[in-house]
């Protein structure tokens, strides 16, 4: 099939960018979206034009590297799917597709479709961990964890840190990302000890990085390739209130 692409091109962080039109010809419906871009890039290469830069790595939906907004939806139209797992049979011959980077102040564009997500790392550094140094920990079965808690914690921990929640949020808020880590650790007895300081530090870092606030649109959940529930945002709010009142 043949498609028309409109792709954000931006030479570097400090230069402006624009949407540029490309024709993608003879695209097989069995290609993944990224393979379609590979083919377009090989074509550009042949013509002596610089290929479109985009982040990708594992191409099996788990590393969290790929980050394209397709026709206004982060990771494209399939629910619970990263771009690398999206296939071209989802599109029709003659479609035109708009491809843009994640848009948020905290995720500045580095080049074309690649953004800098260091802000997420900074939030984890601020407190998204349990302070358990290597060695000197008890036997794994010494800490009993109700199955329900372990399962809920796993639901939250499934976050791949791609940033689609921020890209989808009308306010470029990182609440779902932060809530997922806060909840994952707060649900476990090992993590409960630091829960109060953790939630405060992570939220304060989140604000500092320039993310917006949540106004409960739940767009983040719709875009999340791991379908992490907005219930964790409620949980985080509660954790935050608890930590703030206890003082």
């Amino acid at each position, binding site marked *: 099939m043949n498609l028309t692409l409109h792709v954000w091109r931006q030479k570097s962080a400090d230069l402006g960018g624009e949407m540029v039109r490309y024709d993608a010809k003879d695209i097989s419906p069995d290609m993944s979206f990224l393979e379609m871009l590979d083919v377009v890039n090989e074509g550009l290469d042949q013509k002596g034009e610089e290929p479109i830069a985009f982040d990708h790595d594992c191409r099996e939906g788990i590393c969290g590297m790929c980050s394209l907004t397709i026709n206004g939806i982060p990771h494209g139209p399939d629910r619970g799917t990263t771009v690398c797992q999206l296939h071209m049979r989802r599109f029709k011959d003659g479609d035109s597709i708009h491809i843009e980077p994640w848009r948020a102040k905290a995720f500045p564009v580095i080049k074309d479709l690649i953004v800098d997500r260091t802000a997420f790392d900074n939030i984890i550094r601020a407190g998204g961990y349990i302070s358990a140094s290597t060695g000197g920990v008890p036997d794994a079965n010494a800490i009993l964890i109700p199955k329900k808690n372990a399962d809920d914690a796993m639901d939250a921990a499934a976050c791949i840190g791609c940033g689609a929640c921020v890209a989808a949020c009308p306010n*470029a808020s990182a609440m779902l990302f932060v809530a997922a880590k806060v909840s994952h650790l707060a649900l476990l007895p090992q993590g409960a000890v630091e829960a109060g300081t953790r939630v405060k530090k992570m939220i304060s870092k989140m604000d500092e990085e320039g993310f917006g606030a949540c106004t409960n649109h739940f767009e983040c959940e719709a875009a999340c390739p791991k379908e992490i529930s907005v219930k964790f945002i409620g949980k985080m709010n509660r954790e935050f209130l608890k*930590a703030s*009142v206890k003082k």
Partner: protein
Amino acid sequence: MLAAGFTKSSVGKKLLMAATGLMLFGFVVGHLLGNLQIFLGAKVLNEYAVHLLELGPLLWLMRGGLLTALILHIGLAVNLALENRKARPTGYSFRASVQTTYAARTMMVSGVIILAYVVYHLLHFTFRVTNPEISSLHDAAGHHDVYAMVVLSFKDPVISGVYILAQLLLASHLSHGFGSMFQSLGWICEGNEYCMKKVSLAIGALIGLGYISIPAAVLLNMLTVPGGAG
């Protein structure tokens, strides 16, 4: 007490938005219940108005509280909206959304219009500036005739129209705001977010209908001023 920095934090602000929203919601419900007494006849409504005024200092305390909540609610909303806008300096050229609602996206618009309406509403019924000829009547007992004031006002299709429009926006505002309140306060039993969305929609609709029922009844001649000018 609340920890330092609470009010500076985005989550703290949201919690305050929810708390002030809750207070305003309480007022909206109370006010509706009060108003609906119109269906019980002029006597009941007018006596209710008298009782309210008899509360004296307590009434002023409530009014003060509500005003503070309102100012905070608006101030925080403006502040958050500005911050949220800053969080995405460059927008998408192709905009789309999956599951947000019209009501959620227009909270600022509905909020601002409701605020403007509240000002007009106070001028109309509380301070009786806009239509003094019908808002200063007295009933047989010598009480301020609230009943007549309301019915006669709503006989005017322009006044009714404005009122109904404002109530529709209030319904919209609450249909998102009510559920949001619980989510922001972390008061939803986890997993019930979507159920709460529906509850929220129902609450918004119910309150909107409740308020609208009054002008509707007047326009349909179900509420009339006995032997009155209407």
